[in-house]
């Protein structure tokens, strides 16, 4: 009897036992976050109704099954991996042919172009406001976090700067511009403003240790929001800004005024689609250029990069400014579409949301940022509109927070990793290299 309990103890501390504990813990957490909301003044209500009810058995059972499957996988990992890899290689093999690849790009774009015709009005709006905008934002942040390895937690501040620039130049802020412009012509100005803000903030802070950048950008995001909310004489204060004009094009004999309200969704969808494609192409070209290689070099080993003649500060500022301008760009687009700015919306939480989208898809991976952002944003809106009894919209960040931790533990490279990134993470795990630009500078060579 004693021997058996000893064996159990040893087993429970071994890899299998620890994994079982982990899965059970995960199942309990899942039971808690899908459980009922707590009652005000009764802190134990939510916990009791999540854990001390029959439903918890289903969760634990699911955890044990997941553990069983994972054990199965771990035992046979080495045997199955080559087969999995081979199947995958076979599946992507045709795409190494240029024509197939371009054909599939055209097909995807065509599908994207047809999409608004087959979805409802609600989903058209979600697709533009929640998915398209965030895909663009995620692509921009991917340059900062993914390519350059810098953690920017104030990303949405630049979005706000873009949106307020649009409001300023269209003459709806309490302060008036020298000339009133149509938002379409504001785009370059707003992008410049966001980029300038990025450079001004980045130049002093990007010299610092990488994790300080995170906290400074966090503070900056908070400051910008406070300023927008408080400085009523300039920004209109917490009531926000209304009456931002919609885009209109009036050149070369083309006259087009973007519609407002529900009619605006489809035209803005196509506009966003164009910009997302442009962003994908631009960032792809950057990644595979001298600039992109310099980012990789800095991310991997800043000291060695400097010894190779790369100025880390210059390239970090560049990445930061490119991210900022993408964010500002999205800000103008969104502000002119919905016609108003509510500054209370643009909290740090929104920056974190975009970060989560990038992390989920795969830092440094363009298809990752694209598909990751689209999938998560689709998912959260699907859950929101479906009214499942177990899902409360306000709990979104409980799910996202848990998702981020799980991703960092099991798949830090994201669902569609970039080749370079997953190599780096793999190597870092073997103790080679650092895989980000966060190592303290001046660490002796």
């Amino acid at each position, binding site marked *: 009897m004693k021997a058996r309990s000893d064996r159990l103890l040893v087993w429970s501390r071994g890899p299998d036992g620890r994994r079982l504990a982990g899965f059970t813990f995960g199942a309990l957490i899942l039971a808690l976050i899908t459980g009922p909301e707590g009652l005000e003044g009764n802190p134990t209500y939510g916990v009791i109704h999540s854990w001390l009810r029959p439903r918890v058995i289903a969760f634990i059972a699911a955890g044990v099954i997941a553990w069983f499957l994972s054990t199965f996988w771990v035992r046979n990992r080495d045997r199955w991996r080559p087969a999995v890899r081979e199947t995958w290689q076979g599946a992507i093999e045709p795409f190494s042919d240029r024509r197939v690849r371009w054909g599939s790009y055209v097909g995807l774009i065509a599908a994207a172009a047809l999409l608004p015709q087959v979805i409802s009005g609600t989903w058209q709006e979600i697709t533009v406001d929640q998915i398209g905008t965030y895909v663009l934002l995620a692509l921009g942040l991917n340059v900062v976090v993914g390519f350059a390895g810098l953690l920017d937690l104030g990303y949405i501040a630049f979005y706000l700067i873009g949106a307020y620039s649009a409001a300023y130049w269209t003459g709806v802020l309490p302060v008036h511009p020298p000339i009133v412009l149509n938002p379409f012509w504001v785009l370059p100005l707003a992008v410049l403003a966001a980029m300038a803000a990025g450079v001004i903030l980045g130049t002093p802070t990007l010299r610092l240790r990488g994790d300080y950048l995170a906290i400074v950008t966090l503070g900056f995001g908070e400051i910008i929001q406070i300023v927008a909310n408080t400085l009523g004489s300039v920004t209109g204060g917490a009531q926000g800004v209304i009456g931002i004009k919609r885009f209109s094009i009036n050149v070369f004999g083309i006259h087009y005024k973007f519609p407002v309200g529900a009619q605006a969704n489809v035209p803005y969808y196509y506009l966003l689609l164009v910009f997302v494609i442009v962003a994908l192409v631009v960032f792809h070209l950057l990644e595979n250029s001298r*600039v992109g290689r310099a980012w990789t*070099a800095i991310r*991997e080993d800043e000291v060695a990069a400097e010894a*190779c003649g790369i100025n880390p500060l210059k390239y970090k500022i560049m990445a930061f400014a490119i991210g900022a301008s993408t964010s500002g760009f999205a800000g103008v687009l969104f502000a002119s579409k919905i016609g108003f700015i509510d500054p209370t919306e643009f909290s740090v939480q929104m920056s974190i949301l975009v970060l989560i989208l990038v992390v989920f898809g795969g830092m440094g991976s363009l298809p990752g940022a694209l598909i990751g952002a689209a999938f998560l944003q689709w998912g959260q809106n699907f859950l929101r509109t479906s009214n499942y009894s177990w899902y409360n919209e306000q709990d979104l960040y409980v799910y996202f927070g848990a998702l981020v931790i799980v991703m960092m533990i099991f798949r830090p490279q994201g669902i569609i990793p970039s080749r370079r990134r997953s190599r780096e993470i793999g*190597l870092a795990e073997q103790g080679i290299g650092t895989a980000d630009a966060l190592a303290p500078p001046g660490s002796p060579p």
Partner: protein
Amino acid sequence: MSEASTVAPNEDLIVSVSEVTLRFGGVTSLSDVSLDQRRGEILSVIGPNGAGKTSLFNCLTGVYEPQEGSIQFCGDPHREPVEVIGRRPNRVSRLGIARTFQTSRLFNALTTFENVKIGVESRQHTGPIGAVLRLPRTRREERESDQRTLELLEFVGLRAQANTLSSALAFGDQRRLEIARALGTEPSLLLLDEPAAGANQSEKAELERVIRRVNSELGISVLLIEHDMRLVMSIAERVVVLNFGEVIATGTPATVQRDKRVIEAYLGTTEDEEAG
């Protein structure tokens, strides 16, 4: 001592270190170090562990900023020498000083080819706008850097491994890849920090051959930190000996080997370093 380490004043020097002192808090890492290197020379810096050899390299490449002294570098004989101290490492690289590291610091997730290309590209000008618009200059630079990279890989004998991940290379190959990457930055002075440390005999021979060719075929001056005395003796024209952050001897390998203070310095530490 400073007198012993300087050469005749009218000689063509590529680098002239004079009276450099480097301190960290209360610890003096280099004290009043002076040394001159002639253009085209292979000069070796030797000394026991902790003598300040790598600190000297870090001063020469802008990683550390010494409190006192001056480092005059003259990459182009037709130009005036310039001060190295006070420049960031990337500026020093632009001047024409390239280096390798004691433990190799390659970009591990990149291929052999990409590693060298990053070095080569440091002399180019493509910025984000050029890269996105694929301007004619960008394309020309791409072509040039690809070609130059392949030449350099050929030069160090790594062309066949161009598409291998640098972390997957054999140890000796990694050392030569680091040299190729440094050569990509078009240096006139190459600093090698213990290139042969941990290498086996055949790797050492290969390294020696590469270093000689860097010097003779490319006309690059080489400053070499090395513990392997056989390598130093066969390759270096002159040797500077550091001990406790001071220069204790300078001269040809043969004279230095007979120097009393040098022998003391080495016997004071471990013997196997001397044997190499």
